[in-house]
């Protein structure tokens, strides 16, 4: 809230760092349009760590690429919507303007640090390149800055490491280098697309701790994309649950975890293994992820939903604010319609 106040004092007209409004990104294939992202909206404020959760193929990564306008075109296309970043709609920007935003104001780190670094360029040089793409800093100073940021992301002997090639670094260290590259330009928003999926558990924990430290130390907001609910609970203050190209639940992490509203979220939480509850078998959600060329009519989750009624296959449920700031898109919370059938 205080941050919002500061902004309005500076005369800025917006409160949100990033506001996505009714974003639709489709992939046009021979079989028809794959509706990978189909009308999602959410906001990220300064200082937020926003979790975007969902199973594989639900449109999380496409959302990230849409923000950066890097959806492979063809076949992909942002069909409609707005991506308002610092008060300006990124979808209206020219390619050149986007280039000055990518890496400078919005950075991204990926799933696989093993393949995200150029194998034949020294890691220090790769950081220097990121700096010099967006500033005129001289190479000497940029190199010093690169070494400094490597130290900051927890790489010991940064001076030596900077001169090495990616294959000489361990997986965890490479992910630290990726984070260093993403943060060296002091972006407003860091998009982390499953940054720990390919790392082993101890290294995962270290990288997540690092992200948490970054959040505490810098102004950078984080959009954290994952399928791991445990990580979201630990790291994020807000989250959105995606299912088949749509957001089904959205709210503060605390309220979503203590009071999950959408049946999909409830089932997802039940599917998480827990140490404190003894169970023979983990719960699973019946059925498969729907075909995004011909998604189910009405609510996309209704074929797999244990509570589904006939009306669910007819009406697309709107986002309903059930608690303050906690939304779900399920007809159960539309009392009139739910009772009427």
């Amino acid at each position, binding site marked *: 809230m205080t941050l919002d106040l500061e902004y309005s004092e500076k005369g800025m007209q917006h409160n949100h760092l990033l506001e996505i409004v009714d974003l639709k990104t489709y992939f046009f294939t021979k079989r028809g349009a794959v509706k990978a992202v189909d009308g999602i909206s959410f906001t990220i404020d300064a200082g937020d760590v926003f979790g975007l959760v969902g199973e594989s193929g639900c449109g999380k990564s496409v959302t990230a690429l849409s923000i950066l306008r890097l959806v492979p075109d063809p076949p992909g296309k942002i069909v409609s919507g707005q991506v308002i970043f610092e008060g300006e709609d990124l979808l209206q920007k020219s390619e050149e303007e986007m280039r000055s935003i990518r890496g400078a104001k919005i950075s991204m780190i*990926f799933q696989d640090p093993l393949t995200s670094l150029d194998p034949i360029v020294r890691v220090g040089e790769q950081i220097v390149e990121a700096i010099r793409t967006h500033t005129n800093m001289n190479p000497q100073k940029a190199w010093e800055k690169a070494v400094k940021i490597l130290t900051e992301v927890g790489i010991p002997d940064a001076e030596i490491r900077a001169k090495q090639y990616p294959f000489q670094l361990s997986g965890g260290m490479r992910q630290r280098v990726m984070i260093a590259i993403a943060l060296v330009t002091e972006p407003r928003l860091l998009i982390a697309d499953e940054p720990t999926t390919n790392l082993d558990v101890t290294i995962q924990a270290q990288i997540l701790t690092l992200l948490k430290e970054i959040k505490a130390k810098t102004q950078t907001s984080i959009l954290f994309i994952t399928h791991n609910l445990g990580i979201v609970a630990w790291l994020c203050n807000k989250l959105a649950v995606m299912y088949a190209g749509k957001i089904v639940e959205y709210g503060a992490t605390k309220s979503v975890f203590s009071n999950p509203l959408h049946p999909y979220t409830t089932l997802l939480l039940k599917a998480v293994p827990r140490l404190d509850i003894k169970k023979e078998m983990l719960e699973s959600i019946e059925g498969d992820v729907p075909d995004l060329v011909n998604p189910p009519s009405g609510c996309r989750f209704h074929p797999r939903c244990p509570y589904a009624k006939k009306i669910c296959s007819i009406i697309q449920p709107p986002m309903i604010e059930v608690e303050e700031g906690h939304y779900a898109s399920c007809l159960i919370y539309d009392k009139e319609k739910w009772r009427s059938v």
Partner: protein
Amino acid sequence: MRPLKDLKKLLFGESSELSIIIEHLKSDKPALFGLAVIILLVLMAVFADFISPYDPNLQDLSRRLEPPSWEHPFGRDEFGRDILSRIIYGSRISLTVGVVVITISLLIGTALGALSGYIGGWIDLVIMRVADIFLAFPGLLLAIGLTAVLGQSIFNVMAALAIVNWPGYARVIRSQILYIKGLDYVEAARIMGASNARILASHVLPNSFAPIIVLATIGMGWAILAEAGLSFLGLGVQPPTPSWGSIIATGRDFIFRAPHITTIPGIVLALSILAFNLFGDGLRDALDPRLRI
């Protein structure tokens, strides 16, 4: 050995790509043999004026077709010229043709292959169909046709061979680029705001070169052989300039009376091509990331 190692460290770092390749080649005997022969050839060509025992064009018709002796280890040809000297000078032609042809082929092939692979679309279609047309002809036959049209000179031989040779490089570069441009680090560079030109120049192309280096090494052998072939047919270097191909060609008439005129340059030619191929194979293994760790 010590100062050499320090220099290597200074130039390429403790364990850079290049020093790994050198380490690998050290234990590859055939490749080392190839490299030794190549170095020998280069020295021969560079220092021909100092090491050749006689003037390669000095005739002595009274001693024509003389077989190898201590005085003339490779014998004399039909004009009584010293064959060893002619082979030494001939290496200049062979290596020059090899280097020039490969350089031109590389430049054309890389430029067109990079455009084709990186931009794609109709540019790709046009360039690749043109390449296909060139590849559809048997290489040497097309080169013969081209030299016949362009006229007989060593420059035209080089031009013809480069024209015949570039489509192979274009194809390899294109396929490399198609593969590399889909890799995460290229996407990462784009996400960091790098422009297309920058991505192509500093990430995609440098990563595409490993197979090209190998292809170029083996291509040297091919170019040397092709030049010898064209000279053999009388389309290349004009007498009296010595070329391995033309020495073999003139010796053909005396193959029973003086077999050394054809066989000795033939062996030198075969050995050179073998050397380039062995070295190319060694490089291929050294550059193969699956054989590392």
